């Protein structure tokens, strides 16, 4: 019986193995469609964001097609699960590049963008984007095919420092402490923020680097206790360890303003901190999904209500990938209008003309994407009555 089971397992593995990589993908891109490939982290440690990213880009393609597509061409979305593993993500890129010849590709990380750059540039027919707001993937010379769907992390921190400086004009300059994770998401924005703080005369009184997770907060809180900051800026965390920091700071008799940026301002963070009585404040690159003054956000909400009625909150990851889809579609639209093929140089040229592009209110100002990023953001603050993040400033361009 045991050997029978073993044989069955081996046979099953063999069958699964033979089906997989040699199976032919779907047909190559048809002339009347534009293919957007994606390696999305639908499973794995980043799945909490990956599912929303996958839904966002998929829904944008469906929505756009329902509006007539791009110059009469439909968008076709081809995505596979990367599991947030580089090997898997790169293999998916190569697979979809070979079988579908996509013009646009969405990936799951900074690492992914860097790893596919040489192949993407060599292919001469694909532009990429991802959830990453890291500086290295916004470098037009090193990563010429990539578009960052927002400002980079340093720019978000510059926006935050501008806000702090503007709101503290009349009084003394507040003491600021940085607490950030020892990851690229955590570290990338800090030098930019510190440089802008120095320029604006804002004192950084403490700088604490922690692991991403499994942190013993107590010794770090002791450091903060000595520094007595008025503002603590967290960077590189989605939720933990921010609530624990707040609890222990309170116990230590400190009640600083808690700030953050980007993904650290999502619902899990502001709900958890709101429950502790914290009015989380921070720099966001997009409008929130509940806001009604952005026509594209309204479209997004309407579409979601119809297509995914179970989704009650529009995550910034969903908005980010939807915006990447919008940028892809706009590039294709400009190329096709000019009767140019969707080659990398033509698409780069089209992108360079997007200096005052209307995102439909996803970002506040007319977006300048010509430098492969959108260098603007806005400060939001938690409203305990509405239990949502509400605008605390106008849109700030840096």
């Amino acid at each position, binding site marked *: 019986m*045991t050997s029978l*089971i*073993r044989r069955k*397992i*081996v046979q099953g*593995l063999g069958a*699964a*193995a033979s*089906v*997989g*990589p*040699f*199976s032919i993908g779907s047909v190559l891109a048809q002339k009347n469609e534009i293919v957007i490939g994606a390696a999305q982290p*639908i*499973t*794995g440690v980043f*799945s909490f964001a990956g599912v929303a990213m996958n839904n966002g880009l998929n829904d944008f393609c469906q929505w756009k097609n329902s509006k007539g597509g791009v110059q009469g061409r439909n968008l076709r979305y081809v995505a*596979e*699960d990367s*599991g947030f593993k*580089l*090997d*898997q993500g*790169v*293999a998916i890129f*190569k*697979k979809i*590049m*070979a*079988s579908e010849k996509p013009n646009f590709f969405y990936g799951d990380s*900074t*690492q992914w963008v*860097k*790893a596919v*750059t*040489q*192949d993407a540039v*060599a292919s001469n027919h694909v532009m990429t984007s991802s959830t990453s707001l*890291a*500086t*290295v993937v916004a470098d037009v010379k*090193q990563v010429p095919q990539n578009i960052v769907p927002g400002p980079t992390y340093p720019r978000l921190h510059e926006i935050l420092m501008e806000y702090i400086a503007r709101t503290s004009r009349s009084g003394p300059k507040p003491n600021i402490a940085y607490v950030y994770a*020892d*990851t*690229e998401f955590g*570290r*990338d924005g800090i030098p930019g923020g510190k440089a802008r703080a120095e320029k604006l005369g804002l004192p950084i009184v403490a700088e604490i680097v922690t692991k991403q997770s499994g942190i013993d907060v107590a010794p770090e809180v002791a450091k903060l206790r000595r520094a007595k900051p008025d503002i603590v800026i967290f960077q590189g965390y989605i939720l933990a360890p921010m609530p624990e920091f707040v609890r222990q700071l309170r116990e230590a008799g400190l009640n600083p303003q808690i700030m953050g940026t980007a993904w650290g301002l999502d619902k899990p963070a502001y709900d958890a901190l709101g429950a502790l009585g914290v009015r989380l404040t921070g720099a966001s690159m997009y409008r929130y999904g509940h806001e009604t003054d952005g026509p594209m956000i309204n479209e997004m909400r309407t579409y979601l209500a119809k297509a995914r009625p179970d989704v009650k909150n529009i995550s910034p990851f969903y908005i980010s990938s939807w915006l990447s889809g919008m940028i892809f579609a706009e590039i294709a639209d400009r190329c096709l209008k000019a009767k140019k093929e969707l080659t990398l140089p033509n698409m780069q040229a089209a992108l360079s003309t997007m200096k005052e592009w209307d995102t439909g209110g996803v970002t506040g100002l007319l977006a300048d994407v010509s430098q492969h990023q959108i260098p603007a953001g806005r400060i939001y603050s938690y409203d305990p009555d509405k239990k949502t993040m509400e605008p605390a400033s106008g849109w700030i361009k840096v």
Partner: protein
Amino acid sequence: MRTGVFHETFAAEERLWDSPTARTWMLTFTALLFTMPAWGSDYVLAMACIIGIHVIATLGLNLTTGNAGLISLAHAAFLGVGCYTVAFLGRHGVPFYIALPAAGALAAALGVVVGLPSLRVKGIYLAIATIAAHFILTFVFREWESVTGGVPGTAIPRANLFGFEFRGDRRNFYLIFGCAFILALAARNLARTHIGRAFVAVRDRDFSAEILGVNLMRTKLLAFALGAFYAGTAGGLLGYFYGNITPDYFLLTLSVFYLAAIIVGGLGSVLGSVLGALFMTFVPEALRLFAQASSDRFPGVAGLLLPMQQAVFGILIIAFLIFEPHGLAAIWARVRRTFHLWPFRT
């Protein structure tokens, strides 16, 4: 050992491929492998390159852990050392045929340092000591920005052989599998030398080995050095393959991946290393593709099947440990024995 095989000389017993059938199969396999760039799709080649790199690294860990019985959880860090070495040397114009062996050599030198605790401790204590080495090295990867590029990582110039650039997977394939083939052959040969036998003696009972005349210090450090050399070479090839690398690749989970590969494949076996690396890379991919294909036909089950693949992969590994603790290599040996009786009697 196969039934019905009688060796009349020691040399006959020591041959790598001991029958015409084995030699024919090996030749066929090698021919198929090295013509893969002509018939494989881009995806198949990309996966093959990744598997080739993992095979080299797994071979290295199998020498240290499988053959010599010394647990190492610093293998991913050794890969990182190799990768950053080729990146640094490449930026300074050193050609790849010098940079790649140098990557292996530097990793081997560090392997000796990391292996020093093995002279005093073994088992779980040695594992902890190597974990410490892993964290020290990964800290260096993140902080030594002028060499490693820090957290954002660094670019690695393409390998270039007298003007022939290894651009794209079809060319990288030959670089990776050329190295894999040579290193696998070297590992197989090593097992037949006094060094290989000393490794096994140390693994089975180090006191007895010392009484028999095996120099424990030299043997243990050599096992670490060789394992790290393989990992460094694999890391260098990884750099050439991706062209860009960040420290996030060399996590502790990668070391665990290789440890799982040698256990699933078969400890102390070259074939086990190859099969283990293949299993660990290919089965999750096959499960993912299967889940994806099923999801296309039955959209309702997509949300269930995709997360399930990790659980299925875990169950497969546990099943191997229970039903076949000697790994895939033992299954292959059984298959060979069966076929040797019929129809391929030699």
